[in-house]
C-alpha cells in the first residue's frame, strides 16, 4: 500500500480526536447528570415539549 504513513496519520488523527471528544462529552454528561435530578433531563420523558424556560 502506498502512502501508508499519510493514511495512518490522517485516519488516526481523525478517529483519535473524535474518540477523545466522545469521551469528554460522556464524562461531562455523567458529571452533570449526577447533579441534576432525573426529572429535569427532558429526553427521559416524552411529555415534555422542551419549551420550558
Amino acid at each position: 500500500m502506498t502512502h501508508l504513513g499519510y493514511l495512518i496519520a490522517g485516519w488516526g488523527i481523525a478517529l483519535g480526536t473524535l474518540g477523545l471528544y466522545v469521551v469528554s462529552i460522556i464524562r461531562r454528561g455523567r458529571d452533570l447528570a449526577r447533579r441534576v435530578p432525573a426529572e429535569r433531563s427532558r429526553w427521559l420523558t416524552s411529555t415534555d415539549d422542551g419549551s420550558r424556560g
Partner: protein
Amino acid sequence: MTETMVTTGTTTGSGGSRVLGAVTLLGLATLLLFAFGLTEPDVRLHPTTGEEIGQFDAVRLLYLHVPLAVFTYVAFVLCAVASAGYLVRRTPWFDTMAHAAAEVGTVFCGLVLVTGSIWGRPVWNTWWEWGDVRLMTTLVLFLMFAGYLALRRATVDPRAAALRGAVVALVAVLDLPLVNRSVEWWENRTLHQKSTLGELKIQDLTLFTLMLGFLVFGLVLAWLLLHRFRVGWLEREDAELGVATAIAERRAAIDGGDVDAAVGEDA
C-alpha cells in the same frame, strides 16, 4: 425500556442514543473495511505516455475527508439556523442547539483541515495550497467559530452569551459567501474537486464506499449533536438549580440583628 430506566439520571445516554451509538460504531468498522480492504487504489494510465498516474492509496483518505467536510458545513448551517431561531423565539432550546452544533462543527472543521493537509502532501505535493477556494474558506470558517467558542466561554451571563453567540454565528455564515467569492477571484487556480474527484475512476465500489462514508459520518454527527445538546441542557439545568439554591441560601442567611447594626438602627 426497563433497562434504560435503571440507568437514567446518571448519563446523557438514552435507549435511542445507545442504539444510534452501536450502529455508528458498526458503520465505522464497515467503512474501514471498505476503505482499506475492498476498494482499489486510484491508478490510471496516462493517455499518451502510458505511465501509471493517480492518487494511488492516498485516495483512501477521501472517504474520511470529504464526508467530514460536508458535515462541517451541515453543522455550521444548523448552528446559524438555530441562532436565528434563538433571536426570534429566545428559548433555551435554540441556544443549546446552536452551541452544540458550533462546537461539534468546529471539531469537524479542524479535522477537515488536518486530513486535507495530509492528503494534499502526497497528491498535490504541498501541505497547504493558498489558491484553493475551499481550503481558504474552511480555514476562515474554522477561525470564526473558534472565536465564537472563545466568546461564549468568556461571557459569564448566560443570556448575554446566547445573544452574542447568535449574532456571531449569523455573521459568520452570512460572511461565508463573501469569503468564498473573494478567494475564488483572488486566485483562479483552484485545484479542488474537478481535478481530483472528477478525474477519479469512479467505480461502483469507490462510489459505494464514499456514500457509506457520508452515512457513517452523518451518524457520527447525529450522535455527537445529540449528546452535546444534552450536556448543554444539563449545564443550564445545573446552573438554574445553582441559582435556586443560592437564592434560598441568601434568604436564609438574613440576620435581622446584623441588618440593624449595618444600617445603624436600634432594633
